[in-house]
Structures are given as C-alpha cells and as structure tokens.
C-alpha cells in the first residue's frame, strides 16, 4: 500500500515535471520547480505562493488575455495580483480571495493560500491556456506557417429549417469544402517550393562565401529544433495529462476538507457557482446594510441590538438568495450584464425591504 503510494507520488512528480517542461518550452520565464506544486497542495509558505503568483502573472502577460490597463504597468506586486485576479475573472474563474479589497480584512494576510493559486492554475489549464500558449509559440517559431487571419464568424441564431435555407446551407458547405481543397493544394505547393528552396540553399551554406544565408539558416534550424522540442513536450504532457488531473482532484479534496484558516468566515459557505461579478455593487450594498442598523440605532434608541442583528441577517439572507447565478459559457459582456441587472434587482429589493421595515417601524 505504502509502496504503491510512493510509486504514485513519484509518477505525479514526473508528470508535473513534464508540465513544467512544457510551460517553459512555451516561452514562460517564471516556471517553478515541480516540488513547488506539491508544497502548494498542502498550502505552502510565502515563497511557494510568490512563485505561483509569478507563474500566473507570466501566463496572463504572455497570452495577453487580460484586457486591462493594469497589464501595461507591472511594477508592484499588488499590480501583479490585480492582473491575475482580473485575468482569472475574465476566464470565468471566481474565488473569494480575488475580491479582497486593498486594506480590507483579508489583504493583511495575503488573502489567499498557495493552494488557492494552484487551483486557479488548474482552472486555467483546463480552460485551454496551454493550447493557447502553444499555438502562440508555434506561430512565433514556425515562420513557414500560414497564419490564419482571425475572422469573427457571424452566426445568426435564427436558424430557419425550411428546405430553401437547408439547400442554401448545403451549397455553402460545398463551397467551403472546395475552398478547403484549394487551400490545401496551395499549402502543398508552398511546402514543395520551400523544400526546393531549402535543398538548393543547403549546399551553398556549407561554403564560406554565403555567410549571411548560413546565419539565417542556422537561426532557422535553431528555431525548428525549439519547435520540435515544444511539440514533443506537448505530446509527452498529453500522454500523462490524466495523472495530473487525478492529482488535481486530490488538491480539490484537500481544499474542501481543510479550508485554510484565517479567512472571513461569512464567506466560507458560499457556493462556487455564485456570480461574484456584480459583487462590487453588492458588497457596497452589504456595507450600506451593515451601517444601516447603526444609523437606525442612532435614530431609535429604545430598540434592542438582537432585533437589529436579526433583521440584518434576514437582509443578507435575502441578498444571498437574490444573487444571480452565473450562466456557464456565456460571453463576458453578457455575464457582466447579468451581474449588473442582478445588482439593480437586489437594490430594488433592498428598497422594498427598507420600505417594509419603515412600515414595521411605524406599526
């Protein structure tokens, strides 16, 4: 049993090493050692945390997937964290530590553990960040590739299923197939010509007369070698990926079993599927609600604190239930819109609630 466990952990370490190798091959600079991952699983120290922060920052910086002004100025550590939080938010990930405000209760303790960051990294990998990094790097390395110009496919959602539009669709599919064939033959021709070019320039590069061409060729060769290494690293990773995800599961288990101490307790029981995007507004609301009873307390002195607390609890419960659930696989914009509409709903509820309270007051 024990032996088996040891064997498994050795295997996991190799798998993580494969991942690290791949990450490094995609051109990331801040790739930590495999050991860091293991330590992060058990909520490692500040040092581990820092390394993961750097890795995440590097990923977002390299993929430049964060459309935020923050990505341009990365001076301070807090800026890095903002970038990572924004990047994770935009990739659809949400965890409580991302919403800790500066100077707030959580900020003093760093807000999150290294395990949180590891989970966030796992999310990014599962969302296809690796492939994104890979594609980007391949395009940098392989200059013979025809890079497709990004097209925004405009697909109408009102698909009509009458025979005329089906026929039209069949025609368009045929058209696409023909264009695909044409493109393929173009690429074949291009490959053929490149081959002819390379084989013509190879012997000449051996002679000293064409230093320039041989320098270019050397660079090309180096790039090709790098490209091969990259693709090989990806292949290796793909073969053992399963083990990594099993291990990641164990990280999630760890996370669920022993929540990291020192976090604000009232957040601990939130469901993961809850939308936090509109939370700036909600939090402000909550803060207002928190201050409201004090104000009221100031206004009406005879009231007992327990009653206030009870009311406050009720409002919060209401806010929690009204909080909109984020729909999976929605566009970023619409997700935000849902969040905001949720906010307005909540505020109107709050208004209502305040009204009711007012009535209760008078009664």
């Amino acid at each position, binding site marked *: 049993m024990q032996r088996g466990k040891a064997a498994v952990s050795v295997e996991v370490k190799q798998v993580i090493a494969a991942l690290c190798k791949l990450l490094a091959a995609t051109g990331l600079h801040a790739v930590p050692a495999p050991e860091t991952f293991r330590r992060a699983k058990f909520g490692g120290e500040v040092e581990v945390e820092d390394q993961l922060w750097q890795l995440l920052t590097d990923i977002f910086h390299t993929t430049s997937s964060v459309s935020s002004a923050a990505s341009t100025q990365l001076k301070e550590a807090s800026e890095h964290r903002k970038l990572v939080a924004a990047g994770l938010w935009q990739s659809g990930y949400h965890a409580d530590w991302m919403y800790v405000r500066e100077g707030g209760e959580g900020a003093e303790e760093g807000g999150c553990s290294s395990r949180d960051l590891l989970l966030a990294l796992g999310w990014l990998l599962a969302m296809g960040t690796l492939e994104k990094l890979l594609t980007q790097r391949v395009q940098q390395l392989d200059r013979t590739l025809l890079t497709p110009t990004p097209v925004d496919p405009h697909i109408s959602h009102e698909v009509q299923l009458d025979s005329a539009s089906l026929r039209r669709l069949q025609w368009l599919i045929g058209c696409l197939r023909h*264009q695909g064939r044409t493109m393929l033959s173009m690429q074949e021709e291009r490959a053929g010509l490149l081959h002819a070019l390379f084989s013509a320039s190879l012997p000449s590069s051996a002679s000293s007369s064409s230093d320039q061409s041989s320098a270019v060729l050397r660079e090309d060769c180096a790039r090709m070698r790098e490209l091969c290494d990259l693709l090989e690293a990806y292949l290796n990773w793909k073969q053992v990926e399963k083990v990594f995800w099993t291990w990641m599961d164990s990280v999630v288990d760890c996370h669920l079993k022993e929540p990291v101490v020192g976090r604000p307790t009232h957040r601990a029981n939130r469901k993961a599927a809850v939308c936090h995007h509109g939370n700036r507004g909600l939090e402000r609301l909550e803060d207002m609600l928190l201050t409201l009873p004090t104000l009221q307390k100031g206004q009406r002195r005879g009231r007992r604190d327990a009653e206030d607390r009870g009311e406050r609890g009720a409002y919060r419960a209401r806010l929690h239930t009204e909080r909109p659930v984020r729909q999976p696989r929605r566009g970023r914009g619409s997700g935000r819109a849902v969040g905001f509409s949720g906010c307005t709903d909540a505020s109107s509820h709050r208004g209502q609630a305040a009204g009711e309270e007012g009535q209760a007051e008078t009664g």
Partner: protein
Amino acid sequence: MSVVTVQLGQCGNQVGHQLFDVICSDAHEAQRIYSCSSCERFFYRSRQGELVARAVMIDMEAKVINQSLTKAAKSGRWKYGDTSYFSQKQGSGNNWANGYCVHGPRHREVVEELVRREVERCDRLAGLMAMMSVAGGTGSGVGTYVTQCLRDIYPKSFILNHLTWPYGTGEVIVQNYNSVLTLAHLYQLSDAILVHENDTVHRICSQLLNIKHISFSDVNTVIAQQLGSVLQPALTADSHGVYSRNPLGELVSALACHPEYKLLSVSSIPQMPSSSIAYSTFSWPGLLKHLRQMLISNAKMEEGIDWQVRPLAGSERTRSLTGPSFNTSLANLLILRGKDVYSAETGSFEDPALYTSWLSSGEAFTLWKSPVPFNKYEKSATLVSNSQALLKPLDNMVGKAWNMFASRAYIHQYIKFGISEEDFLDSFTSLEQVISSYSQLC
C-alpha cells in the same frame, strides 16, 4: 497549376486531341504571359524543348490513339507523351458492364501509374479532367471505373468529367443503358459534370457554321473550342489581376457546390464560319443580350431564340407559375474574351429572377474576363450554366432506358459481366433524384 487530362475511349481521345490543338494554337498566337499561363496548365516542356500535353490516353483499341498521336506529332507545335497512353487489342463492345467490370479492373494498375506520373510532373495539381462519351463501352464503362480510382487516389483534388452525350436517335442500341449507368455512378464521384450533346453541337455545325457534310471531327472541333474558351486563362475575382491559376477549382466552386446539382452545360456566342468573321462586327451589349436570352429560353444557339420567354417577377414565382419554357439557373459562370472586355456590362446576368430563390445572385453568378481574343473572334462570350437546360435530354434518356429495362431488353448482356438488375434500379433511382432536384429548381 496544371490540369491532367485523362482521355478515355474513342470519343474522349478525339475530343481531347482537338482540345489540346485548340489550346495550343490559341496560346501560340497570344502574348507571352497568357501563353505561358496556358502552357503551364496543359503542357510541359520535354528535354528537347517540345510542348508535351499533360494527358493520359486510354482506349481498348489502338486505332484512335494512334491517329491522335500521329496528328499531334504532325502539327509540329505539340505532342503527346511518348509513353503516356494505354491501349488494348479488343474493345468493350459498347457494353458499359464490360468496361466497368472487366477492362477497368484488369488494367487498373497500369492506368493509375500513367496518371500518377503525369500528376507528379505538376508543381501543383489544379485537378483532373476525364473526357469520355457516355454511349459506348470503353469511354463510359472504363471511364467510370477510372474516375472511381482517381477519386480514391486523389480525394482532395478537383475532378471534372467532360461527357459527350450521344445523338437522341442513337448510334448504339444500348446507349441509354450505358448513359444511365455512367451518369448515376459519376454523380457520386465527380465534382462537376460538363456535358456536350451531340445533337446540339450538330445543329451548331449545320445552322451556324454552314457545314454541309458534318463529320465527327467538325463536331469535336466545336466542343473543343467551347471547352477551350472555358479553360484558357482568365482573370477571376480570386486571381487579383493576374491569370487565375486554379481553373478547375474556381469553375467547380462557382457552379457546383451543391451535391445534388452537378450538371453543367455550355453555350457560346458568336459562332460563325470563319469566312464571315471579317464582315461582322460585334458589340458587348448585343452579344450579352443574345446570350442571356439563350440562357433563359434554353437555346444553345443564337439561331431561333424564343424572345417571348421572360423571367417572372418575384410575386409570380411564388405561385410556381414559372412557365415550362423558362430555364431557371442555379449558378452561372460567364467568361468574356476579347477587346474592351472591361467595358462589358453584365448586370443583366445578375438579375435574381434568373436564379433559384435560395441562392442570392451574388453567390450564383461569377464572371471571368480576359482581354485576349479567343478563336479569331474579336469579342466572344461563353456561358457555363448549372441550370435546367439538361433536364429534358436527361429525362428523355432515362425514360428510354427505363422502357427498355421494363421489357428486360439486353439486360443479360450486362448481367453476364456482373451488373445486376439491382444495380440498374439503383442507377435509375439516383438519376430520378437528380431529375426531381432540377425540376424543383425555382
């Protein structure tokens, strides 16, 4: 980009030879860029500097191949490859089954090797063009079998079949059987099927070209000239100001993207005896007006056009009152060659009323142009059309074959080579589907 032509059977070899002759003499007289572009498509240069056709000749009898070889060599301008032909001593006896089930499989390797050699000679293969008739045994039967092999070996290449349809009052008693079997099989294999009807071409020879004693050679020349005007270099929308390098791909993409509609017909204008050309003047508006009326009234010649046929307005069409005489198109490709080609106004071909309701005229109409005159005409226009034009002859052909099949006439001749009644029925079914698809085109 080069096209490899596969000439099959007597008809395919004669038309193919004629086509190369037309193309070579056209390119010979033109300016350098056009000429180079044309030669790259259809010829390569041998070590001795001769132009050699990118073609493979296949027949079960040696006679026609030898004639074509000799004639080409005699022309002094071009020739066939010394070893790019294959022939046997015994023909297919006008029996599709004999060609498809016996001769085809027996000589598969040799034929494939010949084609592969030609394909490997191309820097880039634009596609394969198989030329044959549908009436006989070798062209139709071996031709179908070879097309099938080509489709297997080159699944990503464009394959165009050029078919010559027999005279209605036939040369061969079982020509309708052969035609039905060929068409039904090719419909699954080919990307587009370009059809010339002997009857139509014969009428062009007699009425427009004033030929008294019409020979096969006259008929083949007309076919080759029409084909040449389609396949010679032209400026297309995708070619960005230079001659298009992908003739077959662009032809197929313009006309035959839908798997149920693959039948293309060709008509061109003007067509007249060369002695009259000197006394004629051409204007683009006049030529295009005639050509458009030829299209919608389904006339293959300027002679005897029905000027009464008009496209109906949108509201009338929905009531499906499109008269039987109106020829609805799925897609059209107009090729203009000659002087002042850039001033030609082609808006009348973009009228949505000409086309089926489910395809916009922008998608359905394609225009190619070339400032180089073709075939001695100062200005000429050729229209390749995927329309109902072939519906009637196809229906006649299938009808006649079905009548024979109903009385099981000559069926045993096919069964003995391995084609069952079930195969016949499958072929009838698939052609009925084609007929129904084209009938519903409105």
